[in-house]
């Protein structure tokens, strides 16, 4: 029975910590930026940069999911859908206008679709919302292979134009890395700022004590809708960066597996903490790329590791320091 005894820290609500007067969010953001900056100098070779690129894109997706899941408290699996919308529409738009304009248009379209979706399913509760949004992502994966004008032959879009600034295209691994790193760090601090804004505080209040929030005039439904749209727009942004840095998009790059992977990242990383996102992505996405030499056993090893981590650290990797601290204090 829930709430009877908790031997281990649980991932119960409040999902995200109230950030007011807590410095770790900024500090972790700075630390993350510093690590990315160092990695950009330390690493050489296109293979390493491909891995880093994957890590950063999944971190961006995990951060988007953090906004929807941890800040707004919505259990939604639609992020891969918005990632796909960004990845497929951005090259189409970029052929017709400058990148900044194309990005704005893509984000606007993504937000509009997110708004329609969340208004449609706004009354659904946890499980129903999760599956309805999963269904939405699934609908899009059927659309990709069947819309040649925008999504290419059978949904395979090759030779996507790299982004160019002031006439010079970002093509080599290292400049591409810097561009993506700038994107992910910007997203990180944007989310920290959102959590510290009125919107973020309202969301914390609404999640932790809905009655008190309602009495104080916070419109919970409006807060949820806005945060869902914002998170989806972030995913579309990640999709755009993904398309132009990889130069290739296929239906598999935005299918339901991506939504599920992002969910795994956030829970394993620690849903209460924003820095759980990069940490979880490191374990969930980068580790399997590193152990491919185990061949067949890599998948099994990874799945077992996942179950073991979730059993021994249900609050995620980011929850371990707090758990240790509490243990030490009690002893």
């Amino acid at each position, binding site marked *: *029975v*829930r*709430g*009877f*005894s*908790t*031997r*281990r820290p*649980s*991932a*119960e*609500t409040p999902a995200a910590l109230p950030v007011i007067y807590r410095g770790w969010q900024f500090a972790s953001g700075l630390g993350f930026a510093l690590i990315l900056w160092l990695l950009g100098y330390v690493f050489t070779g296109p293979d390493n940069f491909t891995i880093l690129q994957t890590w950063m894109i999944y971190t961006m997706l995990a951060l988007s999911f953090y906004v929807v899941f941890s800040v707004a408290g919505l*259990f939604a699996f639609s992020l891969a859908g918005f990632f796909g919308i960004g990845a497929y529409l951005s090259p189409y738009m970029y052929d017709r206008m400058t990148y900044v304009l194309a990005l704005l248009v893509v984000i606007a379209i993504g937000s509009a679709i997110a708004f329609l*979706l969340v208004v*449609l*399913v706004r*009354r*659904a*509760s*946890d*499980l*129903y*919302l*999760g*599956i*309805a949004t*999963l*269904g*939405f992502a*699934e*609908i899009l994966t*059927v*659309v990709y292979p*069947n819309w040649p004008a925008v999504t290419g032959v059978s949904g395979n879009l090759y030779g996507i134009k790299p982004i160019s600034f002031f006439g010079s295209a970002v093509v080599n691994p290292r400049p591409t890395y810097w561009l993506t790193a700038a994107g992910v760090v910007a997203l990180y601090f944007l989310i920290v700022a959102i959590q510290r804004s009125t919107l973020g505080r309202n969301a914390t209040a609404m999640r932790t004590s809905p009655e008190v929030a309602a009495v104080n005039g916070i419109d919970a439904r409006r807060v949820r809708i806005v945060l869902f749209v914002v998170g989806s727009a972030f995913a579309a942004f990640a999709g755009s960066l993904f398309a132009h840095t990889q130069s290739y998009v296929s239906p598999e790059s935005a299918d*339901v597996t991506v939504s*599920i992977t992002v*969910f*795994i990242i956030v*829970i*394993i990383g620690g*849903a209460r903490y924003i820095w759980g996102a990069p940490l979880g992505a490191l374990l969930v996405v980068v580790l399997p790329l590193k152990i491919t030499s185990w061949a*067949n*056993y890599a*998948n*099994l090893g*990874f*799945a*077992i590791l*996942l*179950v073991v981590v*979730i*059993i021994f650290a*249900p609050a995620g990797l980011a929850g371990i320091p707090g758990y240790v601290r509490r243990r030490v204090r009690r002893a």
Partner: protein
Amino acid sequence: MVRFIESAISGVAVASTLALLALGFVLIYRATGVINFAQGDLATLGAYLGIWTTGSLGLPVGLAYLAVLPLMFVFGLLFERLAHAPLRNQSTHVVVLATLGIGMAIRAALQIWRGPNELNLKPLVSANAVHIGHVAIAYQDIFSFVVAAVCIGAVAFVLAKTSLGRQVRATTDDRIAARLYGVRVNRLAPLIFGVGSVLAGVAGLLIAETTAVQLNLGFDLLLNSIAAAIIGGFGRLSGLVLGALVVGMAEQLLGAYVLPNYGEIWPFVAMILVVAVRPNGLLGGIKGARL
């Protein structure tokens, strides 16, 4: 007209296997509150076990199919001990993740055991069809329908008429109260996971009768079957049947006539619309359940 009737009949056949897959899912959800994302992979496991018992073990086909069921039950017990029992105090999302992990482990283990290629299960029922006028009905479709009807009927009977069923329903309504009244809630969970796994195994065998078996067999069907459960609402088994019929018909009938390339989207469009209009499904959700 013939095409219409044949599409409708294959819609019913699809609905039968979906309902069977969803039945285990809903049963586990109602008794333990766990969204079991491994349900599809359990079906895949059932199909692979069927290939093992019919092929390598060389049992007669009927016996081989039956032999899969106790194996699935034991696996369900292990599953519960591993992924549910240690996480009893955790939030639903953490348990969901554990079931996802178990599902991935099943897929990975099956790949090591049998390789990534497609396999075929020795069918129990012949691939012929009975002809009524111009309409052909495959024996396998009839078999799926009968098996699904029997399983759903049996579960409905146990839930409605037996002491065990009353205990499960009490647990669904209020876990704590059920426990105070002496229902051994934590003893119920392994049993329910076992039965849910057996149902998934049956569904897997039925699906494998007509299609090639591969690692994502069940996982690909899981979403459709959950969609069926959601359309009907988790509250009643009749809702499950209704939802499965809606999904099967939407896929086969609507898919045959409207935008054939997009046939697969209709179940999900239907689901989103149902959730928009009736957030607890057509026949209502579980009273007082925390979803």
